[in-house]
């Protein structure tokens, strides 16, 4: 199954929010939908959910327009909220029934998720009596009870303690393995790297980067080398003084020395030269940007497309 968002544009009055958004997500994998605040993520999600129509463009599943009645969608909104003064079990049944579930199936599903998230004791309590983390779990449950094929999680980890976060990680991994399409939106890049095979970065209403994270990282210049050593200062001086034919420039980033080579084929020569000097090297390798680096690079205000490091 493939969810495809094609050429979506949307404006509210004069305000153009989305200007041609494209991306694809396939079942059994998670897509990280990233963007700064106000980039248009929530609007994109709402268009996928059919809350309002796009000005142009379309959302398809396997080439057909997305029909929410046939393909249920689970949504964990960034702004959490349910009925604070209602009994948890009752409001979950209500939400499941709104999505077309029978009361009996809803009860069975709620029982399953209550057990899975270790929340059985709370089913007959009012939501307001729960801790923030537990309310968060109920919210997650609300998005999963109707057994959706497409799951949209907006900042699912905010407010969870490490134990609950690890439980949620397992749940998300299970969902991916079960062949669901997971759209994952977060500013916590470590989680995105953990779950998502591919990402789409929204910036000012446009997709500025999308694809497999592995490919994106590999697409970066492979002529940049990182060296970790206690002797970084000595190595830097050595490179600048003695290896001028290999090394373009160097810079230091925390305990790493980053060396830009004049060409990717110079990598082995550099390694050989450093080894010959018998420096105390902890590690040496091709520099790979973190997702955070990539995100900042594509969405920062001083975005420059020419230089990448």
């Amino acid at each position, binding site marked *: 199954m493939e969810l495809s968002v094609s050429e979506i544009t949307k404006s*509210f*009055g004069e305000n153009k929010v989305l200007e041609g958004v494209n991306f694809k997500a396939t079942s059994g994998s998670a897509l990280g939908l990233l963007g700064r605040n106000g980039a248009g993520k929530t609007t994109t999600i*709402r268009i996928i*959910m059919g*809350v*309002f*129509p796009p*000005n142009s463009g379309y959302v398809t599943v396997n080439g057909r327009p997305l029909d929410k009645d046939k393909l249920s*969608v689970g*949504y964990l*909104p960034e*702004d*959490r*909220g*349910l*009925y*604070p003064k209602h009994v948890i079990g009752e409001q979950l049944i*209500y*939400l499941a*029934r*709104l*999505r*077309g579930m029978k009361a009996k199936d809803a009860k069975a599903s709620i029982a399953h998720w209550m057990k899975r998230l270790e929340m059985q004791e709370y089913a007959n309590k009012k939501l307001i009596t729960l801790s923030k983390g537990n309310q968060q779990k109920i*919210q997650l449950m*609300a*998005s999963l009870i109707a057994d959706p094929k497409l799951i949209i999680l907006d900042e699912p980890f905010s407010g969870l303690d490490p134990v609950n976060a690890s439980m949620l990680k397992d749940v998300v991994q299970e969902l991916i393995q079960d062949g669901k399409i997971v759209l994952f939106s977060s500013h916590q890049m470590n989680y995105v790297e953990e779950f998502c095979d591919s990402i789409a970065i929204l910036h000012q209403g446009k997709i500025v980067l999308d694809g497999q994270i592995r490919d994106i990282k590999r697409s970066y210049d492979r002529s940049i080398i990182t060296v970790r050593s206690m002797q970084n200062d000595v190595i830097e001086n050595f490179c600048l003084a003695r290896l001028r034919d290999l090394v373009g420039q160097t810079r230091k980033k925390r305990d790493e020395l980053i060396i830009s080579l004049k060409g990717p084929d110079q990598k082995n020569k550099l390694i050989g030269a450093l080894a010959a000097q018998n420096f105390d090297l902890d590690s040496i390798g091709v520099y790979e940007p973190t997702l955070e680096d990539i995100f900042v690079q594509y969405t920062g205000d001083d975005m420059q497309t020419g230089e990448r490091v």
Partner: protein
Amino acid sequence: MKQLKTIFDFEFGNYAKRKSFLILTIGLMLIVAVVLSWPRISELFAKEQISGTGGDTAAERVQIALIDESGGQSDAALYFNAVPALGKYRFVSLNISVSEAEKKVESGEYNSAIVLTGPLVYTRIARNIPMNDSFAYTFENALLTRYRQQRLAAYGVSEADADTILNAFVTGTVKMTSEGKDQMQNFFYTYILIFLLYFAIIVYGQMVASSVATEKSSRAMELLITSANPKSLMFGKVLGASLAGMLQLVLVLGTAYLFYNLNAPYYTDSAIVQSIFAMPISMLLYTLLFFILGFLLYAFLYASLASLVSRMEELSTIVLPVTFLFVIAFMVVMFSMSGGKVDSPLMVLCSFIPFTSPMAMFTRIAMGEVVAWQITASIAILIISTIGVGILAAKIYRLGVLLYGTPPKPNQILRMLKADKAQLR
């Protein structure tokens, strides 16, 4: 449709299962039942009191000292003791001074003392006079009758003739043409029903508003709006509340009807109570019709306005104009009613304007002269406007529920509605 039913059930359940709703309904029913059974209850207590004191009521009569200084020929005490309306009192003729009488009253030997200084002039000496004291009125009547009898006797009119003349009464019968209405007779039930309409609409309208605002401020809306159609959300909510309101209305009115009939023998000489329950069944049906239409109209307004706020604190400000409009309608109707001018040009106008017609037309039907086509036209206008307002409210609601921040101004809403329409096309 299935979604609408689910939402309707949930919203209705929210009211029906709420403790405050149950307490209020049962409380109202109890009050109505007790008030209407009051004559029976107070009679029960009265009986117990009498049987408890041993029965000799003569000894229990209130002792009143009578000092006759008017120089009348006959024994005044004898006369007053024979007046049935003064049966509670026993007059004792005493030949003492006023200051001695005062002492006797002070000591409690006599409840009070009457000093007659002329055929129609008296002084009453009393220690205290209870709130609902009817003695003066009854005594003065008796005194006046005695005076007239004596004067008539002086003119040679026999006692029997004098009695007949003094006790003469008028027998009048009112015959109404079939179109006419006795405003006096219809006043009380119209008054009660208008009050019920007013409270039901304003209370339930505000409950709908706060229910919408709660969903928004708690952000439950984020999930609801992605799970259900906003139209179903709004209509389900409004219809759920209207059923709850109607149920409450029917239960209270039904209780009143039941307890009136249970206690009917006690109301045979109470014209007001009888006139209330002599209300034609058609008026009851009109009450329900105008309640449903008026409630829906206002509830749609309340729901759409409430959808524009982000926080509960903003709610009362934004719904104020609607509440204001409704209170004005209520005032116009109430003033016209008590002025007896239910068919004044203002009321005729109000009975066609949808926001005032639920109460204005209702009052005119109950108390005024209104021809059938006007009723039909008023109801038709109301139905069409209710549907129109419902559609508009659903559109505002659809936009409003996703808006957070400062509530938009009316012109901003219009602009958004236009833009939205252009997009949907």
